[in-house]
């Protein structure tokens, strides 16, 4: 099975030969690896390589993963063929700013209505979670094209809140 890992802007090709624990084998970029990987519990792995004893945790993170090896971490997105195609098909959204929830929470106040002119950095609405209030701001000046959520609504991380063009 072939994947493409996206680390920041860098793309790394991964050819996973075997995912059958404990012996996993893959080509990462142009380097071949074989690890004796033990799954201590789901998402927590342990392996030894060159004598080094390494614990790795894999944490789903939005559309990707954060992998920690000891105190070091790397964030990545993993694209299989399907998600690559989807990504390629996505349109150019440079002229729009989609403001999305970066945390789960509740919309406690709308500060604008559709059609309002806004300055870059202006607050659009306030989200509250775990006693924290956060003003969600627009990164660009423009017109509020859409307010996607009503006051009082509970949103998940990634939900669309508003669009500014």
């Amino acid at each position, binding site marked *: 099975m072939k994947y493409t890992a996206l680390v920041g802007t860098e793309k790394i090709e991964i050819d996973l030969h075997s*995912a059958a624990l404990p012996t996993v084998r893959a080509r990462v970029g142009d380097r071949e690896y074989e690890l004796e990987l033990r799954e201590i519990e789901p998402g927590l792995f342990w392996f030894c390589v060159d004598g080094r004893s390494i614990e790795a945790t894999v*944490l789903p993170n939005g559309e990707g993963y954060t992998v920690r*090896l000891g105190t*070091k971490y790397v964030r990545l997105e993993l694209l299989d063929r399907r998600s690559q195609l989807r990504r390629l098909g996505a349109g150019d959204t440079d002229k729009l700013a989609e403001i999305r929830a970066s945390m*789960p929470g509740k919309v406690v106040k709308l500060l604008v209505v559709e059609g309002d002119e806004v300055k870059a950095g202006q607050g659009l609405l306030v989200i*509250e979670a*775990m006693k*924290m209030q956060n003003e969600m701001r627009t990164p660009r000046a423009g017109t509020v094209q859409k307010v996607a959520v009503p006051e009082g609504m509970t949103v998940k991380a990634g939900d669309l809140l508003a669009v500014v063009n």
Partner: protein
Amino acid sequence: MFRKILIANRGEIAVRVIRACRELRIPTVAVYSEADEGALHARMADEAFGIGPAPSVESYLAVEKILDVAQRAGADAIHPGYGFLAENAGFAEAVEDAGITFIGPSPAAIALMGSKVESRRAVSKYDVPMVPGTLDPIGSVADALETAAGIGYPLMLKASAGGGGKGLRFVASADQMESALRTTRAEAKAAFGDDAVYIERFVERPRHIEIQVLADRHGNAIHLGERECTIQRRHQKVIEECPSPIMNPELREKLGQAAMRVVEAASYYNAGTVEFLVDQDLNFYFLEMNTRLQVEHAVTEAVTGIDLVRQQIEVAAGNELKIRQQDVTMRGAAIECRIYAEDPDNNFFPSPGRISMLRTPSGPGIRDDSGVYAGWTVPLEYDPLLSKLIAWAPTRADAIARMSRALDEYQIGGIKDNIAFFRQLLDHPAFIAADFDTGFIDRWLGERSKGVTNGMGERDRDMALLIATVFHSRQNSPEANHPAAPTANAWKLAGRNEQLLRKP
């Protein structure tokens, strides 16, 4: 001693109080909201009662419901923990009116110290130095601008009913006043039900140092040394220490004496904390008194060996303080990290959700005061504090090393946490040298690396990618997780094919 104690709180502080009660062999009653069904504090208590929907106003702030449970369960004392109703004088009064002991100070002391204005007025008569500012709440934006002009910028807006870093705003110049006033009032209203706000001069590069006090109802009062709470983010404490690295015996004595005068001014009993700002020249100013247990009480416990929750209960039961001032000795150094469900790489947004994995540290000098467990879903509705991690060692440097070790052991899966953030903070030369002020974290966050990796080498990165890919592929093909399954399926399929073949 009490027959039964109800804990009007949740999470790690409810667990903390239950532990103290168990050690005193006093049965406990927990209350829990619908979001807290199966929460650790409810599981650990001897009795547990649901008190309504998730929003605090309908459960943990619902005074009538809590009193009703107390009476039904036959509790003769209520411990409020911190937050929620802990500093609500009306609650303390309702509790006492119901013939139940409130484990805390008198309603009058809570009311006095809960008002920044009244408390400063009372304390000012007792020769305790204070930061220049308004005593009275400010009115309109125009009033605020006028008063501010007199004191001078930069200054602070503070909710009169505030505490714990909520309802505080830094105002650099006049053009920020309107927006700052609006948000501070809104937060104050939401958090404390009171939007009164006052103005105070901003002290440059201050330290935030607080004195723990204990007083009984017989006029005995002692102080248990200081806590260094300077490391804050957006005016909320993130890491606390005991002792303060800048402390010397003379300053400690002076602060302790000032704290005793505040106790006297409020006719205070039970545990309390007197907060001071200390400037670069070691001048100190009274900030406020917290009329409850503090989140960071455990660093004082580690250094003095005194169980503060137990002392609270004993004093509330009417016992005389057994500890005299000369019995209080400080040994070694302790640090506390507040482990939160939040994402330090995304502006510290809270991260509620299900804890899929939990590995907590232990070993010498380590205490983990947690309110969660593996499998628990951290609710959206409450404070994101998961646990307080405390490290004690003979010296501050050793305590830092020990805390680093413990943070490396701590693993939380399924939600985001601030463990890696602390790990990085403890390596910061300014932290190690104890050369910081209350603005340290906010300045440092600007410089802190938030890239896709924190310096992982290429080979390790390759292996990390490989492991993520293995995890991903196994997640998306469930058979891989159950080696027996494919075989069983093959079997059934074979059986079915056979049947089909045999039929005709």
